[in-house]
């Protein structure tokens, strides 16, 4: 019976695939591969790519994620320098920088997290005890810088500890996630907040009344000023009118009696307007009316 060449080819292919899985490995980007030969660490591959190894049990590969990871360490009650108990939760970004040291000194990633958390807690406690609470909570313009400086100092304290321990880990960032008081303190804070708000309400209403009063007073003042100014201007205007009239009256000097007569007749007309009511004694009803100004004697030319 003739051998089918395809059968042979497929068999070879399958064998190759099997060999590929046992003799090769891939390092993904963002990871590092630590090669152990008979259980001892012998090499590390940090660059992504395709590599060869001896099959197990001669060599084995441990892949480690070298990207930044977040670890949140919950706060524990710690006194500040000014004896205020606070709970500070922090989140650190950490990563493996030396895979060989990491595997040599730490049993597992879980072990790494636990040790890291311990160091963070320790550094946090020591750093908190060096600051006053008002360095973090204050309406001072430099509060933000103080806050950042505090985070940085905590990060540096942790980094120092890690360098000493030489775990092959570094801290990329440290960020405060929560700054809280113990439970008993919050009760007192509530009472204070309520009392402060009550005072503020009263103060606001009083202030409103005072401001309203000031506005009204100011308006009255302006009103008085306006009217005073208007009256002064009126006086000036009247004076100007009188002055202009006086200029015209110069003509009257030519014949003062005639001028007076004419003005008195005008005054009579103005005094006794239409529908004026006059009460006179019956015996001399028209006497008063007839007492009109006499015609002036005129000078001969």
């Amino acid at each position: 019976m003739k051998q089918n060449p395809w059968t042979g080819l497929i068999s070879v292919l399958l064998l190759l695939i099997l060999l590929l899985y046992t003799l090769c490995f891939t390092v993904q980007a963002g990871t590092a591969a630590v090669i152990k030969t008979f259980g001892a660490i012998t090499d590390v591959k940090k660059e992504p790519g395709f590599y060869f190894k001896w099959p197990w049990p001669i060599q084995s590969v441990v892949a480690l994620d070298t990207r930044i990871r977040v670890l949140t360490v919950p706060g524990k009650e710690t006194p500040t320098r000014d004896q205020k108990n606070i709970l500070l939760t922090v989140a650190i970004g950490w990563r493996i920088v030396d895979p060989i040291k990491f595997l040599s000194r730490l049993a597992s990633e879980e072990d790494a997290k636990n040790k890291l958390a311990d160091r963070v807690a320790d550094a946090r406690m020591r750093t908190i005890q060096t600051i006053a609470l008002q360095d973090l909570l204050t309406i001072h313009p430099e509060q933000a810088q103080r806050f950042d400086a505090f985070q940085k100092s905590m990060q540096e304290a942790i980094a120092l500890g890690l360098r000493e321990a030489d775990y092959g880990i570094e801290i990329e960032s440290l960020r405060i996630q929560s700054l809280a008081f113990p439970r008993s303190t919050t009760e007192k804070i509530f009472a204070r907040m309520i009392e402060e708000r009550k005072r503020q309400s009263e103060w606001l209403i009083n202030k409103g009344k005072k401001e309203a009063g000031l506005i009204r007073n100011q308006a009255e003042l302006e009103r008085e000023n306006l009217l005073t100014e208007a009256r002064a201007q009126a006086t000036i205007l009247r004076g100007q009118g009188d002055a202009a009239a006086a200029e015209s009256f110069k003509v009257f000097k030519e014949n003062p009696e005639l001028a007076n007569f004419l003005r008195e007749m005008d005054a009579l007309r103005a005094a006794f307007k239409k529908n004026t009511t006059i009460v006179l004694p019956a015996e001399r009803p028209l006497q008063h009316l007839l007492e009109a100004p006499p015609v002036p004697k005129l000078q001969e030319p």
Partner: protein
Amino acid sequence: MTESDHSNHVHPPNHRCPACSPPPETTPEDLAAIASDPGTRSLSRALAMSFTLLKILFLLLVVFFLLERVTYIEEGQVALIRRFGAYLLDPSGRPRIFEPGSFVFVWPSPIESLEILPRARERSMTIETEFWPRIEKKEKVTQGEKALPVMQSLDPTNDRYHLTGDQNLMHSQWKVTYRVEDFLAYRLAAEDPEAMVRALVVSVILRAMGGISIDDAYYYKKDDLFRRIEEDAKSAVLDPTGRPRWGIRIVHVLNTALLPPGAAQEAFDAVTGALSERTRLIDQARKEAEARLEDAKREADKVRREAEAYATRVRSEAAADAERLTVLLKRFAGDPQGLRIYLEQWRSQELGEILQGMRLYLLPRGSNVLWTGPDPTALVEETETEK
């Protein structure tokens, strides 16, 4: 039993010993006879069909395998390919991105692997529990509600809040909108880039709240505070060169709730009411002040107008009088008698006109009592009659 032993043994009848009598050779005629046997033919056909089916199945598996390695990139997605662990790059050194609408063929692992990512569109995450108390479901406060349940105290492990610069408590919730801009950084910089962003934004909020008083945060400078938080978050997520640290750029940080603790809510509402009242008092005073000033302006205008009218009248009258006198003197210059006659006539005429427009009441003789009845002369007659 060797060949030499065959002479010593006795075969049973019909026994075929291969040494003594080898089987007869299969002749072509025998084979033909076997092949033509119906049973054999049937078996051959069945076997041939099976192998054919197997080949077809194998072919289908290969085709299926090849098709399964082809992926269609849908709208809103992009794809990256890793080859032997490293991302495929374009000639400029940037990751090669497969855009929506394209088909991508990927060799099986460990040769290649495909990663599908959301395209650079906006996504959002909420910061809901980091500054919020733990509330039973039935008491859950949704966005837009005005108060939290009253709690006598806050357990720092479960009830979250932030402290203000004057060491008061506030609760808040936020929504962060962001965009994946650098896919390589997004995949390689951090294991969970969103977690990094969340931690950063929480820290920025805490820092900003810690530098402002509760009244400014809640009443007076809320907008400034929120703007500052958004700006700080946007810049903190970038590295010194301005590139997103973890491939993510923040678009917006929006506050969705800002409330005092439930126990103090009533007191805060009272302040809100007091602020409104203060505004109302001031607005009312302003309105009254404006009205008073308007009245004053009108009155001032009236005073000025009256003065102007007086001045105008006096000027006009004086000018008219002067003119009249001048005209008379000119007209009757050298004729005083003529002037006298003219004046006498003019006076009489004037008096006549004046008297025409008057109402005259005469007091009875010897009396100073005025009767204001419809007919004043009746009183005169009555008085005369009495006399």
